[in-house]
């Protein structure tokens, strides 16, 4: 079941299979494009030196008849000069690329996000111009294409690392500090990020969905996320809401517009609009919700979501309610 399940997570992100949604190629951001150019420069220079070494080694092995150092000391000086010069060149190229990357955050009015890492999920806050625009979600960020996004990075527990390879390199999230990273998306698509610093038992299941979309779509998404949770429409949904807001769930989770307002676990206000459950562990679907709520420790052993032991009727109601939280 696991294999099919994860393939489903992957298909949840992209209709054309998953290869490339978490990769330096295809590049979808200015930083990764710059990385790719610099990488090619390094690859060519390093490849050249490797061929020189292997050529010299091969010649040394095959040349077995004569003896003597003829020309070797001169060659040695040339070699040391060549190595040193190339290293200066590479260091310079690296430094210039780094300077260029540092300027990408200034290219236009930025979207501001505060991302707080937790064992093993991402807390996402969009910081609008005024408090009414603020949005809280989890494990999924939406970014407008062509505009920089500035992300404040914090951690609530251990060191994590923010990494969306298609867009940019890594930045660690360190408890007690606020770090930041700028992104400049240049390609529409759904990408996947993943914690890159070992952070404990479920380090492998700490993914982040990144949706790069046109400005208009991004704005409508943001507006929709600002809304409170819709009211339940059926008795079953109402029962679900009652359970979620008055029982175990509400000790950790928040749902805007209800009495559930805790903030130690992902915000559920628009959970059904997200593409995955439990930081990329399961695809967002009725089956996924059932699996996660019924047996979180089977799906993601060690996660802080406890086993509750809902009766079948309660589970049906809770899932029915959560599915309405678009």
């Amino acid at each position: 079941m696991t294999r099919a399940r994860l393939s489903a997570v992957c298909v949840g992100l992209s209709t054309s299979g998953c290869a490339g949604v978490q990769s330096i190629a295809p590049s979808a951001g200015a930083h990764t494009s710059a990385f790719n150019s610099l990488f090619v420069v390094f690859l060519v220079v390093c490849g050249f030196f490797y061929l020189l070494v292997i050529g010299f080694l091969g010649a040394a092995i095959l040349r077995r008849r004569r003896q003597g150092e003829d020309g070797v000391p001169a060659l040695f000086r040339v070699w040391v000069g060549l190595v040193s010069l190339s290293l200066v060149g590479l260091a310079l190229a690296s430094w210039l690329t780094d300077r260029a990357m540092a300027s990408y955050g200034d290219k236009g009015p930025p979207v501001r996000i505060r991302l707080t890492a937790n064992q093993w999920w991402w807390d996402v806050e969009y910081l609008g111009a005024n408090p009414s625009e603020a949005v809280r979600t989890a494990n999924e960020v939406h970014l407008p294409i062509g505009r920089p996004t500035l992300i404040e990075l914090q951690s609530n527990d251990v060191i994590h690392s923010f990494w969306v390879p298609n867009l940019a390199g890594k930045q660690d999230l360190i408890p007690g500090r606020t770090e930041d990273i700028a992104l400049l998306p240049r390609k529409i698509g759904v990408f996947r990020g993943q914690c890159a610093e070992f952070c404990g038992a479920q380090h492998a299941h700490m993914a982040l969905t990144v949706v790069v979309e046109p400005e208009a779509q991004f704005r409508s998404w943001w507006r929709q996320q600002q809304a409170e949770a819709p009211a339940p429409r059926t008795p079953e949904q109402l029962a679900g809401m009652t359970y979620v807001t008055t029982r175990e769930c509400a000790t950790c989770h928040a749902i805007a517009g209800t009495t559930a307002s805790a903030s130690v676990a992902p915000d559920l206000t628009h959970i059904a609009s997200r593409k995955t459950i439990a930081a990329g562990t399961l695809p967002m679907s009725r089956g996924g919700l059932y699996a996660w709520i019924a047996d979180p420790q089977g799906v993601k052993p060690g996660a802080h979501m406890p086993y509750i032991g809902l009766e079948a009727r309660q589970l049906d109601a809770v899932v029915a309610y959560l599915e309405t939280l678009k």
Partner: protein
Amino acid sequence: MIARDGPELQGAELHDRLTRTWSRKPGLIGWLSTVDHKEVGRRYIVTAFVFFVLAGVLALIMRTQLARPESGLITADRYNQIFTMHGSTMMFLFAVPVMDAVAIYLIPLMVGARNIAFPRLHAFSYYMYLGGGLMLWIAFALNIGPDIGWFAYTPLSGPEYDPGKRADMWAQMITFTEVAALAVSASIIGTIFKQRAPGMRLDRMPLFVWAMLVVSFMVIFAMPAIALASGFLISDRLVGTQFFNPAEGGDPILWQHMFWFFGHPEVYIIFLPATGFVSQITETFSGRSVFGYPYMVLALVATGLLAFGLWVHHMFATGLPRMGYAFYTAASMTVAIPSGVQIFCWIATIWSGRPRFGVPMLYVIGFIITFVIGGLSGVMVASVPLDLQMHDTYFVVAHFHYVLIGGAVFPLLGVVTYWFPKITGRMMSERLGRWAFGIVFASFHLTFMPMHWTGLMGMPRRVYTYPAGMGWDALNFVSTIGAFGIAIAVILFLVNVFTSYWKGELAGPNPWGGTSLEWATTSPPPPYNFAHVPVVESRTPLWDADGGPLPVMTGLRVDERETLLTTLIDAEPDVREASAEPSIWPLLAAIATSILFVGSVFTPWAVVWGAIPVAIALTAWFWPKRSREPGEEPVIA
């Protein structure tokens, strides 16, 4: 009546008397009391290879788990323990100790000494090393193996996020290996500085001796950083200090600075001895002294110094100031210059010599082909913009396995083949050796070459599983096949070792035609190493002698353990020095220290009460012997 070696005491009688003086007592107590560097060295080598095999088995389990996506072979918890144990064992219990182990066996022979300096100290070192390794692996067997990575970043390794004793086991194992490594380094530096054969000036030392000299100093400068770090960690966990707790004014990044200030030199502590191996093998199998000897020495020293200026390149993603990063990029790339010099000089030696391609030489060639790839990918990850993508991905896993397996394990396997006849008196099978080399070389590249792509395609390190369809499946499967290939090669190598140990062809003193002093004595060497102290007049003493006897110096006592000390730079005979007798106290001191260390995982009072037996054992160890009567010192002619 004082007896000395000299013209009137030669041959069989000299051999008998020296053997009587330098042998240890038979029996278990005698076995445990030995201070003979050859016995301790052999135990060290065998123990290190046992840990190598154990950590290799863990690697196979990990590769099996990762062979396919979402494999349920082992749980996340078990996987995290396994990758921590693999890294910690390979780094702390195999790679560093095995280099020390070979040095313990070879350095006294290569410099023409009767025994290593501070013989009891190096025996103590072995028992401490063994104690640390046993503690870690027993903890792992009891399911309290560390699960925090071999780097143990705080606060994940702190009291809040790793309750229980798992991180303590890791930190205390570090303490054991620190003590062991520092003790060995003191012995090796003492041996190299003061016990060289007369005439072996600094510029005539074999390159392996140079490498170990540099490495021993690196250990002495690097180990205090990790000692402090692991000490802080243990006190955070045990007595509530807050060195790494940001909520109380501590700093988790402090850990990373201290860890990598040790951790990067550590890589060169592993690699530089391997360059010494490569130099020795290349010299012997090319039939000429290594090209560019002074440059090779300078490269060793330069690498040793630069190694301490690179540690921040492990921390590019932590958000330190970018201008500072540029310095560490430049420093990291600079290491490519001494490495480039060494590579050139080895190839130039082959080029201008008459190379023979025995198994040790095959490993040298495999080393060059492999290590240079790792070095070049190292230049890539030295660049900040490149590293920020590659950091903590399988690209880096590929990079450091190219450097550590290609750069250190290949030369090690070569040098085991090379010095096996010296240690056992028998040759290893050439045929099996070639098979093992071919398989390990091909399988290594099959395992780790694909990981460059796996990493660039976005797979992070230290994940116990991964989703299907990310483009990583086939690459991971290939890596797993390669890993089993490496296992087959290692098994073949070990079969070769065991069968050759009993049935190998007899070697004679100098089967490869080497030129350094270890080849001047019998294989295996007698307990006293050399009947007379050899005298050295060039870098290639045995080739100068051309099969004849070496010039020697006589006049050392044969009725007591006595060694010759020479001057530091020119190795002129200086004083004669008594060499320590065998003693059980190093073992008892190691046991007492181990009890203190293990106890302090559970209660700080273990440090107080545990210090008493340690003090007793050390007092007995250093209890003054009857001093020699004055006036019996002769002048060495």
